[in-house]
């Protein structure tokens, strides 16, 4: 890749190998009608900085629940979780939002671009919460869109893009603030195989060339082959 990427390879990325996520005895129970659903059952795990983890498991095994806890969106019933040495469950709402904006890039299965905003504006959104001025924001947005190969689609609305392109814009949005950790919940779930391959290659490159730690939830065994580490969840329990 010939693109200048200095702005994207942040010096704040922790040393490769050091644990960036440390979960101990995470439990999550939901009360549904009269019976209890156990989404996470005593999950303890570490994710090393610089790793690319595929989180696999059947539907309902608790993959999204775990991912959302790492993103400080969800809270456990019990257990502890440190992400980048922060006790994320201690955050209040505002702190969690601020922390996510700085350190987490979140990628959805359904892309979740705002339909009335152009690709450029969608990618710029998280930057509006930073101190960057307009020119700096533009620089970041253009760089992020170049990284996903969509610099020529900057002013298109989501509905003018294909699903694969939408997901690449969503990845650019997740990248814009140069976060340490990229969390993706079935990022290829809604894509055809060619678009899926493109997305997986981008994630691989971000991990390999830019030092991003990637945690990707997936059903697809082929997608999992792109990861360095594969973990399985089964009925809320982490398999060895």
């Amino acid at each position, binding site marked *: 890749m010939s693109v200048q990427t200095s702005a994207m390879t942040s010096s704040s990325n922790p040393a490769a190998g050091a644990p960036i996520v440390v979960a101990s005895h995470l439990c999550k129970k939901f009360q549904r009608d009269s019976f209890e659903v156990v989404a996470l059952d005593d999950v303890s795990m570490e994710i090393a900085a610089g790793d690319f983890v595929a989180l696999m498991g059947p539907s309902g095994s608790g993959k999204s629940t775990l991912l*959302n806890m790492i*993103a400080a*969106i*969800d809270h456990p019933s019990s257990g502890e979780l440190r992400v980048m040495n922060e006790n994320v469950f201690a955050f209040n*709402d*505002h702190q969690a*939002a*601020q922390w*996510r*904006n*700085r350190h987490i890039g*979140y990628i*959805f299965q*359904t892309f*979740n671009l*705002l*339909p*009335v*905003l152009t690709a450029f*504006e969608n990618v710029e*959104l*998280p930057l*509006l*919460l930073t101190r960057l001025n307009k020119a700096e924001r533009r620089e970041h947005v253009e760089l992020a869109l170049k990284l996903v190969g969509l610099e020529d689609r900057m002013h298109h609305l989501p509905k003018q893009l294909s699903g694969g392109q939408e997901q690449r814009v969503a990845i650019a*949005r997740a990248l814009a*603030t140069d976060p340490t950790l990229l969390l993706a919940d079935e990022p290829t779930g809604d894509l055809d195989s060619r678009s899926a391959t493109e997305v997986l290659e981008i994630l691989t490159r971000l991990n390999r060339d830019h030092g991003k730690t990637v945690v990707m939830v997936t059903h697809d065994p082929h997608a999992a082959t792109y990861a360095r580490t594969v973990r399985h969840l089964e009925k809320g329990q982490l398999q060895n």
Partner: protein
Amino acid sequence: MAIPISYNLRNLRLRWGATLMTALGVALTVAVASFILALLSGLHRAFQASGNPLNVLVMRKGLSDEVSSSISRGKFGAIKFLPGIAVNAQGQPLASGSLVVVVSLRRRGGDGRANVTLRGLGLQGLALRPGARLVAGHWPQAGRRQIAVGVAAARQFQKTQLGGQLHFGKGDWRVVGEFQDHGSAFESEIWAPRDEMAADFGRPDFSSVLLRAVSPAAASALVRDIESDRRLKLHALTETAYYAQQTSSGAPIAFIGGVIAFIMAIGACFAAMNTMYAAVAYRAREIATLRILGFPRPSILLSFVLESVVLTLFGGVLGIAALLPWNGLTTGTLNSTTFSEMVFQLRFTPHVLADALIFALVLGLIGGLAPAWHASRENILTALRG
């Protein structure tokens, strides 16, 4: 920095059907409210322009309007030489008795009759009302059956053009002049020579007496002297104070209009609220996405409140735009104390327009707050699943 306003504007445009319907509801409400404000503003001006602070109006004690009052010529003689009254070049006190009666005339356009105030003026009557200026013809001459018509009355009634003949009292009266008076209530009156009128209506007494004081201090002294003289049994007040009291004849309009506007405002608030609730429900996933991107709850709240306010302000602008062509429109109302037709103009002053926009803004704030609050409190995970 907040969620960009273009996000809200484009969503309003995207759901243009709902946006337009809501905005039209707000427009109607704002139009009614500002119509009432304009009406009151015109009424206020009509009465405020009437009256000179140096003029002291004297009526019979216990009466608050000229039509039912009466003052004998004897009493007039007793008050016209009180200290503090200005004199003219001939050394005569500036004091004049008016005879005020209400007559019924045919309205223009043929839709029935309406009452008009007919004022008989003595020799000093015009000198005491320097604001009145002829726009056509000449002033009626003493000893003749001549009348001058105020411009507002001329617009309202038939046969009031120069040379026209009006029938009241014991016969016909010829229109010889038309006058204006800075938009005051006098413009709704017809003026005639007092002694001719007194003979026609069999009313030798005066309805009221107008005195010109030498200074504002002398005016208040005159008011005090006349009010405190038990034998006179007269009521005095400055002309300005009198017309300020008359403005209260707008109170019933203001009250009924206020009630209507209030009910409509509640309706418009609910319309805005309903539209915004729909928008919030429709965009639940977008809201959750914004929160995950790091926008805190207050940003979401602010964004949706702003959207609601933009929506109702748009309605407000539509409402004002629909009303502006009516600016200056002349309308009439019944003066509730004299039961004669008061004519005045609708006045959409900048003040009225600003009030209308503030009103629209408040509708948006109130209507948008609950949906925006709901949006900001929504659970991210539930919204993402839904």
